């Protein structure tokens, strides 16, 4: 049996996945990327190996992806996160899909045909509105633990809407909402709603919509809201945050023969 690893070195977190040639996930690990990307990649790789019960020498090929993809010297291939998220999402949903990936600093909308080929993709421009960083900023401004946001939003019963652009202006708008006595649950739901709206205005969502990335992994209410706003069923793979790393590992399987 051959083993493969994918490492997704993202703007916020670094993810590793170890799989076998039957495409089964044997180990995975997520750490904050921090300021030392090679170290983060190494840590998460070692931890994923440990979970898989494997040694580095057991790994046949390693592929890296993500914004820091060139920060792991041991990799045989580097592939962009666009291709890796596509491969990872298509693994679970092999049909025409639109992938919505919300990451720490990037939003991606990727259109994929029935054979798994990318038709086209869009990413947010310079602005980080509607990304993970936006949510972190709002949690900080509202003095709420990041891990509580999903639960709070679920308790909301009011459809409160906020504008969809600019993190800084959103924070100001939220202050206004607080001043007029809106409940924090409703405001947080409004924040997630604005993330979903930001996605909708990026590009038309066609076919089945699959969401990936850390933001939806920790806040699945975004999938619910996106479904509500688009009248579409939103699909989530089992572990949305590691889809990019999984895709990287899957992509290199066919290259196993070349290495021998």
């Amino acid at each position, binding site marked *: 049996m051959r083993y493969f690893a994918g490492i997704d070195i993202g703007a916020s977190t670094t993810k590793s996945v170890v799989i076998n040639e039957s495409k089964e996930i044997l180990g995975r690990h997520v750490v904050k990327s921090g300021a030392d990307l090679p170290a983060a990649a190494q840590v998460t790789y070692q931890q994923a190996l440990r979970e898989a019960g494997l040694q580095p020498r057991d790994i046949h090929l390693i592929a890296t992806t993500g914004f820091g993809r060139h920060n792991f010297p041991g990799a045989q291939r580097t592939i962009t996160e666009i291709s890796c998220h596509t*491969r990872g999402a298509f693994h679970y949903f092999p049909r025409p899909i639109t992938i919505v990936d919300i990451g720490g600093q990037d939003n991606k909308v990727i259109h994929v045909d029935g054979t798994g080929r990318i038709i086209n993709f869009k990413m947010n421009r310079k602005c980080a509105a509607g990304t993970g960083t936006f949510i972190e900023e709002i949690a900080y401004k509202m003095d709420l633990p990041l891990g509580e946001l999903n639960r709070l939003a679920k308790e909301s019963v009011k459809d409160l809407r906020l504008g969809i652009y600019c993190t800084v202006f959103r924070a100001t708008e939220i202050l206004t909402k607080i001043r007029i006595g809106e409940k924090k649950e409703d405001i947080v739901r409004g924040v997630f709603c604005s993330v979903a709206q930001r996605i909708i205005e990026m590009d038309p969502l066609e076919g089945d919509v699959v969401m990936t990335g850390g933001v939806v992994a920790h806040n699945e209410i975004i999938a619910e809201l996106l479904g509500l706003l688009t009248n579409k069923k939103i699909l989530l793979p089992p572990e949305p945050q590691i889809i990019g790393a999984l895709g990287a590992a899957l992509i290199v399987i066919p290259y196993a023969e070349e290495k021998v």
Partner: protein
Amino acid sequence: MMEIFQEWYDHRHEYAKHWKKKNKNGKVMGYFCTYVPEEILYAADILPVRILGSHEPQDVTEPHIFGMYCPFCRDCLAQGLKGRYDYLDGIMISQSCLHIRQAFTSWQIHIPISYSYYLPMPHNLQSKHARPYLRNELAVFKKSIEDWTGQKITEQKLDEGIEVMNKNRRVLKQMYETRKAEQPPMTGLEAMYLAVSDQMIDKNEHTQVMETILKKLPGRKLERSTGTRLMIIGSEDDDTAFIKMVESVGATFVVDDHCTGTRYFWNEVKPAQDRLQAIADRYIDRPACPTKDWMNRTRINHIFRLAKDYNVQGAIIIQQKFCDPHELDIPAIQQMFKENNIPTLFLEFDVTVPIGQFKTRVEAFLEIMQEEDLF
């Protein structure tokens, strides 16, 4: 052998200052738009240099130009405000878009200069009135230059001006045409330095250097693989950092549709008895800027032709942020490429571009085109 063009580009100001010293009483004219008839300037022994930005963040234009005007026009004005063009004797513009015109008028107001000229280049070039209109405007402009320099521009001088420009265009086009080869003998980055430096350097000198290089160019082997053949399309573009990045990840730009590139030099003046009419016709018939490309949109066919002739596999369409005329054309350009199965990538440019983010997009774009590898 192509290094000289980058040297000229990097030392554009030193070059112009040196030129002035060499040509006693020589005047240097800074121009803002490529619809400026350089034939008449060369006929008057004036060195035209195109005013371009420096791609550095700056803080001097905010009081003079609205924030939602394009980064390019702000960058151009910043160069003036910072005194980098202090050697200019005059500035001029042909009407193209309001943004660059704002840079021009602000320059007139805030940077003392002895001569400035606004040439009312018509917009509706497809109207039958455009040709006589522009011809007469060129006559007024010629008179203005004569009054400024105190020298008459004779028919013979006009012919010389036309010949300088035509010869330069012809040789530059021949240089570009070597890029049709399966292994182009120059990179897109070198081509950008080549074409943009042409707008800064005395055409006589530039042509002479090109002619020498052109002889050796077809035999030149680059120590890199060509990769995916790309075209780049947009307004002005001298973002060398972007071109360099794209060409470092498995692609080569083989042709462009930029006013810093092909649109600038693609066609020649066809000699005629009425020289001014011949010059006017050249500017009316050149590959159009989107501000002048209506009622019928002629650019799309022209771009398609270039893409075919240069065997383009993918196109990067760039837009200077807030450039409405170009933005208006983008859906039509994308549609044309889609119908011809040529993938496109759209990117929005600013004074500086986020190279890291753009690299991911460009690499993903190339992965899609070479996707047998991945899927």
